């Protein structure tokens, strides 16, 4: 019984609160609008603030109209109208078309630059209450940057009813930013705000905390200084993480480009200077596949890479076997001349592609699942880089398995270690050579598919990667595939860590010098083959 009465009282109280609220709101919008009829900038400014604070659903429309110069007033009738796009006048408060003719003295409410700024800020506050979540998020982030004190009440309202945690956080941060940069809020509020901003921990937060007003209480200034230190530290860490990520990404590209080179060099002792052109051919195969899909069946576009990967492997692998059978097998025992012959081949292949496809970059698109990015802590990760890393590792593992568990892999390893002995055990070394060369070229072709997603597809595509790939092979050694893996990631990460200090070019030069110094210690790379066969 007692409980019932209490609820009844509460209900009544709530009802009356709502009623008063509605009445107050309606009244305040009307009241606010009268400020526009004074034809005075400071009155208009008050009007903008009051309209925004009224919380009326009409507020946004009114302010937009004011912004666009479509808000009219009549000094006689003390009424404000919105001119609709069709030229009809609507009553500003109700949004209904007015009955009868427009008053004779209806004129635009004039605004100046200061007022435009005020309108922007007021609108920013209003969109905090929009129904579209992304609009709300944008508005909250905009408020964080603008720190308009007048928006504070709106933020409180928005915070109270916001459900989405991301937007809620953005709103909290915006509120904290306002509290910190104005004289609003108690000392405890400000301390809490510093904590919120510290949680945010990015460059903007740093800027906010290091430019607090001079009159903040000492305790706030102290905690802000501590927060600045903490944010700086975490930014350094995130920058390092970002560099490492870029390095891993570059390393995966190098791994794809170098791994085929490493196995042909390991097995046959020849450096294939046309390896970069195999990569380039792989990229052009992707282009052709996408071109055909676009023309025949655009729905399949998202699967274009799944088709291009085997296709490029087959095309590049076939060309590789052709090269081995027609040229390289006649040059065994003359590795330096193989180098020259394959260089000549690379010129021919480049020029052939240039003749067929033209010298300009060709457009290779990203499938939808490879475009876009997401944030992880303080860094941004793009999907295409992520997929390329996964792809490189998948290729690496597949190759490792091939070498370890298949008969062909066994034969390949045998020939790598000791060719004459392998031959006397009945392994057809020339067949192994041809297949190895085909395999290496095929992997280069698949690398081309990956590179087509992040680089320009032009006849010079391969050239940009070939010297780096050589460096990976020289650095990693040809003893086993792990050398290539470690080599490419070490070089990739070292490159990206040197870049911020030395610039891209000097970083590259530094890497080359380091490699030259490194091979002083280990002339045959990190994972060198050991034994008598090496010197042969």
């Amino acid at each position, binding site marked *: 019984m007692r409980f019932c009465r209490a609820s009844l009282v509460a209900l009544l109280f709530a009802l009356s609160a709502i009623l008063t609220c509605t009445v107050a709101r309606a009244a305040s919008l009307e009241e606010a609008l009268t400020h526009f009829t004074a034809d005075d900038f400071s009155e208009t400014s008050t009007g903008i603030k009051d309209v925004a604070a009224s919380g009326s659903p009409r507020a946004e429309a009114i302010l937009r109209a004011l912004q666009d110069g479509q808000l009219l007033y009549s000094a006689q009738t003390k009424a404000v109208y919105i001119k609709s796009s069709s030229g009809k006048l609507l009553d500003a408060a109700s949004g209904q078309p007015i009955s009868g003719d427009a008053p004779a003295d209806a004129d635009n409410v004039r605004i100046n630059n200061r007022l435009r700024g005020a309108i922007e800020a007021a609108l920013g506050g209003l969109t905090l209450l929009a129904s579209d979540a992304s609009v709300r998020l944008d508005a909250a982030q905009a408020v964080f940057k603008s720190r308009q004190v007048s928006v504070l009440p709106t933020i409180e309202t928005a915070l109270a009813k916001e459900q989405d945690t991301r937007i809620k956080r953005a709103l909290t941060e915006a509120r904290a930013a306002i509290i910190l940069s104005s004289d609003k809020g108690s000392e405890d509020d400000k301390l809490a705000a510093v904590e919120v901003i510290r949680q945010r921990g990015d460059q903007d937060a740093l800027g906010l905390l290091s430019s607090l007003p001079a009159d903040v209480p000492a305790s706030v200034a102290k905690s802000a200084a501590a927060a600045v230190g903490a944010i700086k530290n975490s930014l350094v860490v995130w920058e390092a993480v970002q560099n490492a990520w870029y390095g891993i990404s570059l390393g995966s590209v190098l791994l794809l480009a170098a791994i085929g080179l490493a196995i042909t*060099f390991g097995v046959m*002792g*020849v*450096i294939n200077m046309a390896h970069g052109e195999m990569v380039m051919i792989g990229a052009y195969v992707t282009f052709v596949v996408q071109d055909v899909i676009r023309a025949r069946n655009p729905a399949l576009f998202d699967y274009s890479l799944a088709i291009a990967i085997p296709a490029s492997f087959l095309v590049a692998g076939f060309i590789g076997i052709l090269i081995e059978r027609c*040229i390289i097998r*006649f*040059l065994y*025992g*003359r*590795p*330096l*001349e*193989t*180098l*020259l*012959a394959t*260089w*000549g*081949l*690379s*010129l*021919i292949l*480049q*020029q*052939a592609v240039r*003749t067929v496809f033209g010298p300009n970059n060709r457009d290779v698109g990203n499938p939808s699942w490879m475009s876009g990015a997401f944030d992880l802590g303080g860094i941004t990760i793009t999907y295409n880089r992520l997929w390329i890393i996964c792809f490189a590792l998948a290729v690496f593992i597949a190759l490792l398995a091939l070498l370890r568990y298949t008969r062909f892999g066994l034969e390949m390893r045998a020939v790598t270690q000791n060719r004459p002995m392998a031959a006397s055990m009945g392994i057809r070394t020339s067949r192994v050579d041809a297949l190895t060369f085909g395999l290496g070229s095929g992997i280069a072709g698949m690398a081309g598919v990956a590179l087509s997603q992040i680089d320009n597809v032009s006849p010079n595509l391969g050239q940009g990667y070939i*010297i780096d790939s*050589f*460096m990976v*092979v*020289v650095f990693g050694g040809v003893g086993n595939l792990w050398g290539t893996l470690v080599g490419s990631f070490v070089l990739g990460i070292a490159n990206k860590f040197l870049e911020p200090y030395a610039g891209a*070019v*000097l970083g*590259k*030069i530094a890497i*080359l*010098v380091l*490699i*030259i*110094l490194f*091979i*002083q*210690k280990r*002339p*045959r790379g990190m994972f060198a083959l050991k034994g008598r066969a090496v*010197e042969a």
Partner: protein
Amino acid sequence: MTPHILIRSLDRGASAFLIAIAAIAILIPLLHLALPPTSPFHVPTYLISLFGKYACYALLALSIDLIWGFCGILSLGHGAFFALGGYAMGMYLMRQIGTRGVYADPILPDFMVFLNWKELPVYWYGFQYFPYAVLMVVLVPGALAFVFGWFAFRSRVTGVYLSIITQALTFALMLGFFRNNFGFGGNNGLTDFKDILGFNVQAESTRTALFSITCAALMLAFLLCRALITSKFGKVLIAIRDAEARARFLGYRVESYKLFVFTLSACMAGVAGALYVPQVGIINPSEFAPGNSIEAVIWVAVGGRGTLTGAVIGAVLVNYAKTFFTSGFLAPYWLFMLGALFVLVTLLLPRGIVGTMRHWNALRRDRASAAAEDGVREPLPAE
């Protein structure tokens, strides 16, 4: 003593070759200067510059043949030494422009004024003096080759590893010289030269003189190489080429021999570059491109490696073909031809032109003598 060694090193072929170069060095300027332009035998100015360019390339090829043909070191970065020598000469020529540049700064070259530099960088000091510039033409490539070679040969980096590292070297230098803040004119390089030792570089007489000087340098380098390879030192080099491990076990300090010949070869390449720049009128970072160095190697392969004369002949032939084909309607196919040249020469003509001729001669002599003992044939240089 020295002249004696030089002359002793010449066999009949080498002497004939030297005489031929000397004849060209005298005859072409004569045909240019003495005959009126209407005469059918008159050599126009552009040809003088073109032949001068070929002579520089021939000198570069000679330097590559010295290390590749006789010591088995395949450098894919010799273009770097060539370009460094060229830059040293280019710096001298830049300083000679003086107030005649676009910005008329008495000390700073135009590109530095353009980049708003106030002072001449320290490494540009002294380049207004010709003897200093000439010293640098030899010293800079030599020093780089010495340091690089000291590291590389000491740790026994050989074969394709060495080739790849030399290629990386020239690639790194190319990246560096492309930068503006390196202080060598960045992308545009050094150009717009006015005069050399007071003579206008554009003048016909200067060009003719430069051509003759280049031919003289080529002859001198050829003599030097001949003397080197016919000496005991040269025999050791060939031993290193054919069986490096064995030469080492016999007690020769292989790395010292290699280092010496590599440095000497780099100095020769530097001189070639220095002679090249005033005749072409520009030096820019694309001279460092790895492709250029490999192309120079193929000149040697075409002519015949380990023959010296072959290197010169190969350089002139390939470059003549390049001039011929890249200027006409065949231009789009030049890269096909160059590529095919690489493949065909290595596959079908591993001895090169001169090497193959010598081989045939040796075979014919064998047959002619018809003696019971086996004829000594010139062996194909091993890797």
